[in-house]
């Protein structure tokens, strides 16, 4: 087991390196850099530009250096926990980002739990009642969830929540609690607001998960040991829970890797619509204004979040499934 963990951790290093290279290439792609547009903007407003500050920034972040030097600089900074400098906010990226990352993780985590809670019983029902009306209905419902664009669902739910529950529009808590220390009231307020993004983001992932769980469980239910068990008179419920379900459970954990990217993608769009204080809106902004280090750090963070999530799910899987543990490989 230790060997397996070490192997996986080692494999992550090149993965993260390649990701960082891709991220840096992308944020470098637009012509010009932020300082140029910054100077142009200041000059158009008739304000004076402090050449010393510009020169300092250019020097400090090596904007005048060739690509590979800049990349090396950024990477070294990342390793030391220095995410660079946000030009737009005039602050180190770590300070700008701070809480948002925590909230992104919170929303993603709760969403995955929600997806599980919904998908698990529905998937089992669909598999055990294959081709029944309930199966068709639930599958169709799942498809509808898959087909509805997240952002629109978010808008409608926001409106409904406001009309029926009086939840304040936008944000992750009532405006009164922003910048307040954590208290019971604030937690309740966050919970009140949290369910909308969670439901909205969860719908798309849930459909896929139901389908995969159903297919997996159906495969398992057709195996001979199930037939044998039934022939020997095992009660149906026990027959289901004893082996096939446990096999399907493994897959459930392995599936985190598949839904995590989509959860985070969905979270970004929904966050823009709902103006959640997560990474979405700020990243959109940073991308558009070429605030490269801020955008780059966000992208890097989101990608690493998925990589770590997949790692965790693989480790959990290895702990549960001896076949993986002993072979030292990953099975999907």
């Amino acid at each position, binding site marked *: 087991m230790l060997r397996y963990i070490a192997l996986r951790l080692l494999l992550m290093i090149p993965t993260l390196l*390649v*990701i960082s290279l891709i991220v840096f290439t992308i944020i470098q792609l637009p012509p010009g850099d932020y300082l140029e547009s910054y100077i142009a903007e200041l000059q158009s407003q008739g304000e004076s530009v402090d050449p010393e500050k510009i020169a300092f920034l250019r020097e400090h972040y090596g904007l005048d250096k060739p690509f590979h030097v800049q990349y090396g600089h950024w990477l070294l900074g990342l390793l030391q926990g220095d995410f660079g400098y946000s030009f737009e906010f005039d602050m180190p990226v770590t300070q700008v980002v701070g809480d948002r990352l925590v909230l992104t993780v919170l929303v993603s985590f709760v969403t995955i739990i929600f997806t599980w809670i919904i998908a698990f019983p529905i998937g089992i029902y669909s598999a055990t009642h294959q081709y029944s009306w309930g199966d068709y209905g639930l599958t169709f419902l799942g*498809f*509808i969830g898959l087909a509805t*664009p997240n952002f*629109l669902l978010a*808008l409608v739910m926001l409106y409904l929540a406001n009309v029926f529950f009086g939840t304040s529009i936008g944000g992750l808590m009532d405006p009164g609690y922003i910048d307040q220390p954590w208290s019971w009231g604030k937690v309740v307020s966050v919970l009140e607001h949290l369910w909308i993004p969670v439901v909205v983001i969860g719908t798309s992932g849930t459909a896929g998960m139901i389908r995969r769980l159903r297919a997996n469980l159906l495969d398992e239910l057709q195996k001979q040991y199930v037939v044998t068990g039934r022939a020997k008179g095992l009660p149906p419920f026990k027959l289901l829970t004893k082996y096939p379900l446990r096999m399907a459970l493994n897959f459930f954990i392995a599936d985190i890797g598949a839904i995590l*990217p989509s959860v985070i993608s969905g979270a970004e769009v929904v966050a823009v619509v709902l103006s959640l204080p997560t990474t979405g809106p700020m990243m959109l902004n940073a*991308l558009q204004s070429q605030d490269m280090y801020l955008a780059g750090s966000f992208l890097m963070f989101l990608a690493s979040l998925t990589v770590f999530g997949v790692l965790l799910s693989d480790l959990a899987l290895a702990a549960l499934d001896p076949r993986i543990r002993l072979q030292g490989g990953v099975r999907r």
Partner: protein
Amino acid sequence: MTTPRGSDGTRAVTHYVSQAPFDPYSIEALTPEQERYYLASQWQLMWWKLKRHRVAVISGVILLVLYGSTLISEVVAPYNLHTRHTDFIYAPPQSVHWFHQDKFVGPFVYGLDYHLNMTNLKREYRENKERVYPLQFFCRGEQYKFWGIFESQFHLVCPAENGTLFLLGTDRLGRDMLSRIVYGARISLTIGLIGIALSFVMGIVIGGVAGYYGGWVDNLIQRMIEVLRSFPELPLWMALSAVLPVNWSPLLVFFGITVILALLDWMGLARAVRSKILALREEDYCTAAQLMGARPRRIIARHLLPGFLSHLIASASLSVPSMILGETALSFLGLGLRPPITSWGVLLNEAQNINVVALYPWLMLPVVPVIIVILAFNFFGDGLRDAADPYK
């Protein structure tokens, strides 16, 4: 029949001799139906199987109709894409009635009376039961240039003389939503097809190379795919489309977005191609081709690909929806297509704030075709995949 007797009076055993010519294979001969089945080509078999999948057929027909409508959008839409009706800004959908004062008139709409509510400055429209505007079919309406080539006035449906016909309401510039949705289908539907064509080619080439050569090439490509797949798609799309220069023409942006969507979609196909080729390249016919001196490109394209092309097409049709949704999401965020190019995402961009949901909910209607198309593609792709699988 009398039994012939031998000379000694014993009864001889009767023999039956068939006069028909002797055919040793008569038992194995096929009935015409069986023959038709066994001799049918792979595509023929797929088609027969697909026909039995009712949901898939219905979805296929819906898709055909929608794609067909993009060829004649100008004729289907009652108004032009950019026609403004300044007297009818944010007009609600006009519903179609059949009976006027208990008398059958055929499909018609009532005229709208505009009234500005002075307390909250809301535009209010009320149906005027006096004015009856029957719909006209196959009629001459607004002039348009068909595909930008020749001018015509022919429409499927037009409003009555001096009347209006906003079946799905109007937007903030008084443009008819129905017409805009019909025109938007052109962009939204084709972007998925062009994108999938691009990613199809990329997937076959990259997956083919990985599967055929194996070894470190395969390893490298596999790792690359893993890394790319671990990226959350949408932020990456956002980043890439933020890269597109602002001064590009809308058409260039359209192609840029298509390429971006394709760039992040080929991985699944490449994996499928790779695993199939890995399995097939060990077959005898492949070795035979190799011994006869065929080049890798010929072996892949000529001998291996046809074996699973049908399966590939089926799985490709399953990833069209994610492209359409991707375009919609990007345009919604203002990162994708921009007006004057009109796609469903661009239309939904107008429905971005909560006021719209509360006051002008019909601006959200472009989501209906999006849902229909995505459902149809999913069901159709599912059916196609089942039909393409020879072992079921």
